[in-house]
């Protein structure tokens, strides 16, 4: 037990918030907000590193737990803690924050104060989502994470910012209405917002199954939009197209996927199993649909948006296969995917700053001019398409192999097809951006290659991709210790449960 163990989660949550307040109070001098934001995010990242360093692997339940009453009636408490599931997601969020700051360093030239203050608030909100164990606190952070995002998209959108912001906000906000009703209904029936209590009480079967079906559906719906899962992805492409790069890195994926695992599968294992075949089907459709659309995009942000849909759907497939390995692989794939995406977005953002366009056709032959950019981009691309020995391979392999073995061969083959398509569109992107004849745009705009700060942040990411690809065991044990097989033998694969 370390001295600051009981404090660490509060520190992690407060550090970005304090930075935001500081930025808001200090004047908007040349690069002052940038530096404060960078230092704060690095500090917060250091704090998050405390968690894995002092995490006791194998110990069941939550660690670094803080449970302070907040409101007496209804009993809402400031209840935070991490387990193997959220541990690395917190660290990942901490890691990506300075990446986001560096990605915005040159891209954001006006109103830096507002940008960085809101960016840091967004960090707190996301970290809060991962550590909250009280449903209302969780819901609070979940909703709070929308606000800075929507404002920043509107302020820094490329040309249709306000529209994209509205779309993004409403797409996530409206489904969270049934979510709140469901949370309140659980409270009225069970008298607690505490995640652990709710989990055991729901498992004990005191609630009517019919109502639970709707409650679980409300949870699933809210999270599926946020991931997004196939027919609910309408906001994704516009948001990717308009959002500042630093926010694109964090907008999709991990919040929704984590919530699915923790609060849908975790709270309602039976209901989640019942609906799993549908979600699996949607996930496979999402994998293929996203990949096909990504193949034909002319704008690289839109391409990345559909690529994200495809990759995130694969993780959803891993979650709803209801296998223990699949869950571990899914969490691992979240870590890998977010990291690889961050590196790719950082590089694409750097290209956009240098050449002021996002149309793929305007590029060509950049590799000769910016060799370092090209090298890092290729590395990240290889990690993304799942080349063995890089991080993307491990998660993809685990998910696909368990799906094949334990869930359904058909779905696994279809999903693997999507992965192949993924290699196609990503390699085509590399080819069209970096190789081939030099385009007039590239030759007319001589631009500097990656600068020191960009290299300083990309190199650790690439090294990490390699380490994650070579030694996944470093992470697997801790992740596995966080995935408690739900009591009702839910860890049986879906296929076996079918008649």
């Amino acid at each position, binding site marked *: 037990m370390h001295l600051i163990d009981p404090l660490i989660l509060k520190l992690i949550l407060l550090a970005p918030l304090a930075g935001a307040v500081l930025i808001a109070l200090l004047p908007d001098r040349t690069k002052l907000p940038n530096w404060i934001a960078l230092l704060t995010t690095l500090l917060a990242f250091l704090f998050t590193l405390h968690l894995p360093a002092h995490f006791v692997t194998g110990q069941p339940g939550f660690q670094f737990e803080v449970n302070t009453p*907040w*409101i*007496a*009636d*209804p009993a809402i408490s400031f209840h935070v803690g991490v387990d193997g599931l959220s541990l690395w997601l917190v660290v990942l969020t901490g890691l990506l924050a300075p990446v986001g700051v560096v990605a915005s360093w040159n891209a954001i030239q006006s*109103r830096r104060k*507002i940008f960085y203050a809101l960016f840091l608030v967004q960090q707190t909100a996301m970290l809060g989502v991962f550590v909250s164990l009280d449903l*209302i606190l969780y*819901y*609070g*952070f979940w*909703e*709070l994470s*929308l*606000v800075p995002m*929507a*404002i920043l998209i*509107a*302020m820094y959108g490329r040309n249709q*910012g*306000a529209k994209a*912001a*509205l779309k993004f*906000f*409403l797409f996530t*906000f*409206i489904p*969270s*209405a*049934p979510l*709140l*009703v469901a949370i*309140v*209904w659980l*409270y*009225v029936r069970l008298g607690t917002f505490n995640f652990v209590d709710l989990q055991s009480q729901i498992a004990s079967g005191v609630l009517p199954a019919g109502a639970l079906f709707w409650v679980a559906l409300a949870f699933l719906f809210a999270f599926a939009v946020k991931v997004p899962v196939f027919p609910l992805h309408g906001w994704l492409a516009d948001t990717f197209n308009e959002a500042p790069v630093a926010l694109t890195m964090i907008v999709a994926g991990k919040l929704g996927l984590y919530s699915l695992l923790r609060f849908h599968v975790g709270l309602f294992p039976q209901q989640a199993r019942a609906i799993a075949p549908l979600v699996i089907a949607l996930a496979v459709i999402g994998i293929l649909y996203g990949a096909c659309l990504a193949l034909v995009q002319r704008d690289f942000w839109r391409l990345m948006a559909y690529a994200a849909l495809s990759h995130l759907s694969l993780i959803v497939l891993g979650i709803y296969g209801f296998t223990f390995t699949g869950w571990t692989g899914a969490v691992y794939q979240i870590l890998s995917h977010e990291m690889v995406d961050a590196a790719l977005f950082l590089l694409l953002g750097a290209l956009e700053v240098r050449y002021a366009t996002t149309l793929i056709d305007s590029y060509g032959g950049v590799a000769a001019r910016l060799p370092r950019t090209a090298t890092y981009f290729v590395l990240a691309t290889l990690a993304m398409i799942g080349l063995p020995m890089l991080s993307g391979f491990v998660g993809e392999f685990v998910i696909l192999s368990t799906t094949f073995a334990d869930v359904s061969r058909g779905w696994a083959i279809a999903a693997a097809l999507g992965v192949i398509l993924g290699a196609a569109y990503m390699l085509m992107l590399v080819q069209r951006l970096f190789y081939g004849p030099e385009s007039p745009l590239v030759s007319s705009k001589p631009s500097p290659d990656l600068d020191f700060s960009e290299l300083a942040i990309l190199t650790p990411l690439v090294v990490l991709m390699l380490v994650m690809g070579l030694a996944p065991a470093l992470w697997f044990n801790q992740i596995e210790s966080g995935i408690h097989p739900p009591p009702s033998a839910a860890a049986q694969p879906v296929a076996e449960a079918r008649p």
Partner: protein
Amino acid sequence: MNHVPDIYRIAPEVIFTLTGIAIMLLDASIPLSWPRRNLGWVAAIGTTCALWASVWQLSLPDGTGFFSTVETSPFTVFFHVLICGIVLVTLLLTLDTLPTGGHHQGEFYALVVFGAVGMCLLTSAVELLLVFIALEISSIATYILAGYRKHTGRGPEAAIKYFLLGSFATAFLLYGIALVFGATGTTQIYAIARLAPTAPNHGLVVAALAMMLVGLLFKVSAAPFHVWTPDVYEGSPTPVVALLSTAPKAAAFAVLLRVVYEMFPNLRSMWGPLLWVVAALSMTVGNLAALRQQNVKRMLAYSSIAHAGYLLAAFAGTGATGIAAASFYAAAYAAMNVGIFAVITLAAGYDENLSLIDDFRGLIYRTPLLGGMLIFFLISLIGIPFTGGFFGKFYSFTAAVNGGAVVLAIIGLLNSGLAAAYYLRLALASVQKPQATDAMAPKPQAGAAVIAAIFLAAAATLILGILPGATLQSAQTAARALQSPPEPPPATSSPIQSPQ
């Protein structure tokens, strides 16, 4: 039980009245060349004293005075503090934004204070005739305030619409009072509560309830009695709307709580479904109409109709839960709504240079702080957590779910998703880059008073969102006070035989 002088029971009202009279006398007696603005400070000081007196009333034992017509209890104190707070913020707001010269500034302040007398009395009256009188006092003051901008066509139009429809609604209330007197032979609320269940003519009681609901629902601008709201809000000066959309509504909700929970608790099977429908209708109608508005004040008018609906959802809660949720919502709604109208007054100016949503484009670039405040209040109106608006909705819908109205809660929360669309339109307009073609409004001149007003509203909204515990506790105390009427004095109020 030690005796409490009757005058203590109406201490805040007395202070308000004296302040109003003092303002009118001063206005008439000081030389014309002197600025009238300082009268506003007199009003603000009087309001602060009244606020203090309301809190002081907590130290009195609960009970009634003036022959069981006026009550002091945690319930009345809760709403007194709320109303005094709103009036104070409104006064601070007008101090800096009301144009000097040419206008009847002294009258303005006096009317605000007199209106406050009526609203405060409304919440503490336990005698229906006094309720009616208090309602008239508050309404007449607000009718005049609504038409305060005489030089524009809209001002008188707003005042006349408000007056005609308002008096019509008050007539319904009065008719309801007459019917309930016919049924039970008394107009004292506690006596009615005792007698109504056994009243010989049950139909009369039900009719009375219906009539009174019409009158009160008009005052809180719940659908389908809402049609006056947008026109009146659009025509009235913005600082007046800040008052109009909050304080009289809070007072009317207090009366509504009294009527349904204290006077006719046993008629729940009647008013429960009725208010359910009105709540669902208000939210939906308000939000759907607000979506189509281009004018900011009209949009906020429809939004206030929707908020009346959210508040009414709390009435689906049984007993103290419902009352506490409704009271809390009234406080949260008042804080954020006064706040947003204060911001709009300051940004658009008294003459409303900015009236359309598009006019607010780039506000955050012109005045970052004001733009930030606008966004903050809008976020609270949307109901994002860590603001007062969230806990307001949360308690309201928790009460509804508690009372079994899950469908109403779902309708309400889906509505708040709908509402986010138009609130965000304004918020996102204010963060967009101003275009060259946009008419540049003059940079607002912010004085100390108006800054204090916005700060107070923002602080209240934030505190209600982060530490709602204290307010919720007082709301619950208030609810319990309303739930447990004092023991009836045995001899004094022997019921008159119902006239047959």
